């Protein structure tokens, strides 16, 4: 089993102005949507900086499947780091 950890910067494509309360809701949605993907073992979403970190089993799910899911939820994704941790 190979576990990778990726850290992504995400931005809501149609984001304008004040969103903090709303972003709590979005962060919760994002967290749950990613956590449910088969092969994903850990998800952290920072509701203010929109930084997402995901740990996943590379044999069960591909990197692109994860970013695709985030993009489908209306975010732009930018890779900050990607490393094998196990």
């Amino acid at each position, binding site marked *: 089993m190979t576990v990778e950890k990726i850290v992504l910067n995400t931005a809501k494509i149609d984001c*304008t102005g*004040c*969103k*903090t*309360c*709303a972003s709590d809701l979005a962060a919760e*949605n994002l967290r*749950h949507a990613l956590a449910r993907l088969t092969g994903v073992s850990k998800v952290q979403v920072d509701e203010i900086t929109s930084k997402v970190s995901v740990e996943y089993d590379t044999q069960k799910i591909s990197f692109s499947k994860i970013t695709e899911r985030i993009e489908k*939820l209306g975010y732009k994704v930018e890779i900050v780091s990607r490393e094998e941790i196990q």
Partner: protein
Amino acid sequence: MRELTKGVIQVALLGIFALAGALISGSQVAYAHEVSIALTLIAVALGYRIYLHGIRSLRHGNVTAQLFATIAIFISVVAGLVLPQASATGTAEAVGYLTASAIVAFIILAGMTLEDYIIHRTRGALEALIKMSPSTAHIHRNGAEVEIPIDEVKLGEIVLVKPGDKIPVDGTVISGHSTVNQATITGESIPVEKTVGDRTFAGTLNENGALEIKVEKIGEETTLAHIIQLVEEAQEKKAPIQNVADRFTTYFLPIMAVLAFSVFAVSYFALGFDVALARTVTVLLVACPCALSIAVPVAVAGTIGNASMNGIIIKGGTHIEKLKDVKMVAFDKTGTLTVGEPKVVEIKTFGNYSEEDTIKYAAIAEKFSEHPLSKAIIAKAGEMGMKIPDPTDFKTIPGHGVDAHYGNKHILIGRKMMETEISKEASQLMSMIETEGKTAIPVALDKNVIGVVVVADTVRENSLEAIQRLKGIGVKTAMITGDNMRTAKSIAEQVGVDEYQAELLPEDKVAAIGELKKGNVVAMVGDGVNDAPALANSDVGFAMGAAGSDVAVETADVALLGDDLTKVEYAISLSRRAFSTMKGNIIYAFVWNVIALSLAAFGILNPVLAVVLAEAGCISVVVNSALLLLNKPKPLAIAVA
């Protein structure tokens, strides 16, 4: 939920330290004053989530209540430490700055935690769906029945589903008979019969019989998983009205900065430093930009969540706004208002021949035909309990009928096969049947017409109610169909649509929708596959019976997962309510801020009261929006009245 528990503990600790600090300050303990200051400062520090939120949001160019609160608390703490002792932690008659900041931090943190909780609850509908996915499945392996995690089930395997168990996969029944409650998917709580050859969905509940199901889709590929993903995506899509709220919030920061500064300046010169400081802090604390920014997203999430529990997927906030304006709903006929499968509705006979004879010979001749009308006849024979022998020979002439032999008997089916043999009586009867929009199929034995089988598409059980409900909320209805005028007229009269158009080719349907759209917001309801172009041309496209058809779910603006057309009215009514909630919330939040800020600027509020007001404003907006989740369909009588 773990974060919520953490939040509650923080709130409680903050409260305890603040209270202890305030109590000790008035007591006779040694170093009472110093201990009190220390305890109060710890309390204020425990509100660190507020300050983190506030400071980090500033870095991202956002304006939040937490930002104002952070500034206000900072000013108060500094004032409390710097100003003379009397106003620091409190005297008998007034709460000092330091204690006030602890109380303010307590209220804001409590408010934030409560909002987190409500937001969490807004996801309730989704969570309920997610919980419906079973985590294990029973399968046959190496001759024994074993229970394995759902991840390990492979395509093509056979899963066993016992009565009372949830079906773990999408698949086809290969043995057994049962009823299945598919409410998770379709929103319809009346169970449906499932037997060999029927499709089943993951997350639905098997009721009374054991089923063996061949696995076709698992995990993220199942219909249930798709629904969950679609609902998540839909909740993320903004409603256009959000832009109005965003425009307010964009101006919030500059307005607040100017206001806080002017209040301080004016009060300082008119009433002195103490008053000026208190008023400025109050102004900063009473502002509640959050109520504006959160009103719409929570309402969108609540509405889409509610719809999903009723078997309706609304694909985003934009469609909620369109739905509320719908004045006309156009329905496709075949497969939408009607069942879409022709059925034998009547059998007319001549001479000494019985209904059984007519169906029997018709079924023999049609036994190997794939034509929908043949299937209707064979199904009828089956219902009548007949065993149908094979024809000796048969010839299907497309568009005309069938010419077959059974032993030494010659069977002819279809009008064009027997133009010369048909009697005047039979001919008249058939014309009459056809004016009713039904299909008359004559059956001849040795060139004698022995009977006429009447076949018609039947109206869906709830089509009439669906139309009545729409009328009840002031929405007009139309039917557009490719079928002939007579059939169209007959069905239109049965279901009671306001207008209908017949003999339309798919491109004519697109044009018909365009025509209806002049001066109306038009929704179109179809199967989502054949009607895709017309659905796309309408303002809101509804695909019905969409469970299991990914194409239909993808293309539609609103997908009805079951066959229940009454959901069209529910979707419109729910959207109307949702929109008025959103609009109401924005106006309310705006007015609230204006009034609260005015009161604060004129010194009518104190900081603690201000923060209570601000939190109350925000929470009432969130609660009002979240309540959309609990909306329920009205009974028909009320909808009509």
